């Protein structure tokens, strides 16, 4: 029995399960240098394995990363959701938006919806975000979401700043 992945809708976005057809847009994102905060740039075979792992994470953990699509066109524009790899200190609210879709509040809209869904569906009410100290954009978004700097953490030899999100109560998504 596979895990049922809820579909999350916002004004402009639909967050849905990862799909095979997402490989090409993901390859576009990971071809660019700006993907280095997400482990990029990556060759196609590495992006394929990343896509597989994203799908596998849902099945193993019961929660995971949604792919963000535009409600109007269905185009994939990024990812948001909960990551908890075995090297992670605790489940993380992660997010990323492809180039060309920034500055419109879409990352904020997606991350806020994913955070609410994490509480509603999975009981994960007080998540952290693990942010590369040099990733100013991600840090700014964490602050706009109401998170605050809590501590530093070293993960696989990389320093991360741990931002703690406010507790989400009421479970409204």
């Amino acid at each position, binding site marked *: 029995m596979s895990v049922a992945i809820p579909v999350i809708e916002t004004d402009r976005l639909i967050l849905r399960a990862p799909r095979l057809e997402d490989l090409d847009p993901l390859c576009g994102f990971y071809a660019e240098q700006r993907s280095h905060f997400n482990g990029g740039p990556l060759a196609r075979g590495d992006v394929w*394995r990343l896509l597989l792992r994203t799908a596998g994470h849902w099945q193993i953990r019961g929660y995971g990363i949604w792919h963000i699509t535009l409600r109007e066109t269905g185009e994939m524009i990024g990812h948001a959701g909960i990551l908890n790899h075995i090297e992670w200190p605790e489940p993380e609210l992660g997010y990323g938006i492809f180039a060309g879709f920034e500055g419109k509040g879409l990352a904020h809209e997606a991350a806020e919806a994913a955070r609410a869904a994490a509480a509603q569906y999975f009981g994960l009410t007080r998540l952290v975000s693990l942010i590369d100290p040099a990733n100013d954009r991600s840090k700014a978004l964490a602050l706009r979401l109401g998170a605050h700097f809590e501590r530093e953490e070293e993960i696989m030899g990389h320093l991360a700043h741990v931002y703690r999100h406010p507790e989400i109560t009421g479970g409204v998504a």
Partner: protein
Amino acid sequence: MSQLPHLETDRLILSAPGAADQPAMLSFLGSDRAEFYGGPMEPVAAWHKFSAYVGQWVLRGYGFYAIRLKDSGETIGMAGPHHPEGFAEPEMSWLLTDAAYEGKGYAREACEAVLRDLFETRGWDSVVSYIDTANAASRALALRLGARLDETGAPCPLPGCESFRHFAPGRSPEARA
């Protein structure tokens, strides 16, 4: 989302892998037994590899089945069609996680169930196995399963390996001639 399949044999239950199989698979990937699976590797690398195996099921609709003993529920291996990006076709592969499970016919029992599923339920005509020339045990099992050395498909994408092909009943070149 669709129901993932579930196969049963006399002694085994085969189903899509998940959290229950993680300890056995991470232990396998960390051991010398994983030499034909890119191992031995650290737990973090093993976790990422295992979660990719799990994810292939969801994205492709087929993949490695986890093999569990019917009696105890313990995970003893995996068998099924693995299909990396860049492979021209899916590749039937199998493993037992621990030497203690060898010599009991488990791998053969699991592979026969998987091949029946591929050929009878899913309607595949054939499936290839790429086997390292140094992997005598797998080569012997492939032959016992009825596979034969095959040069009809795309060139073997793995260095040091030979292509063996399993045919659905009645679908081998001789049967179709």
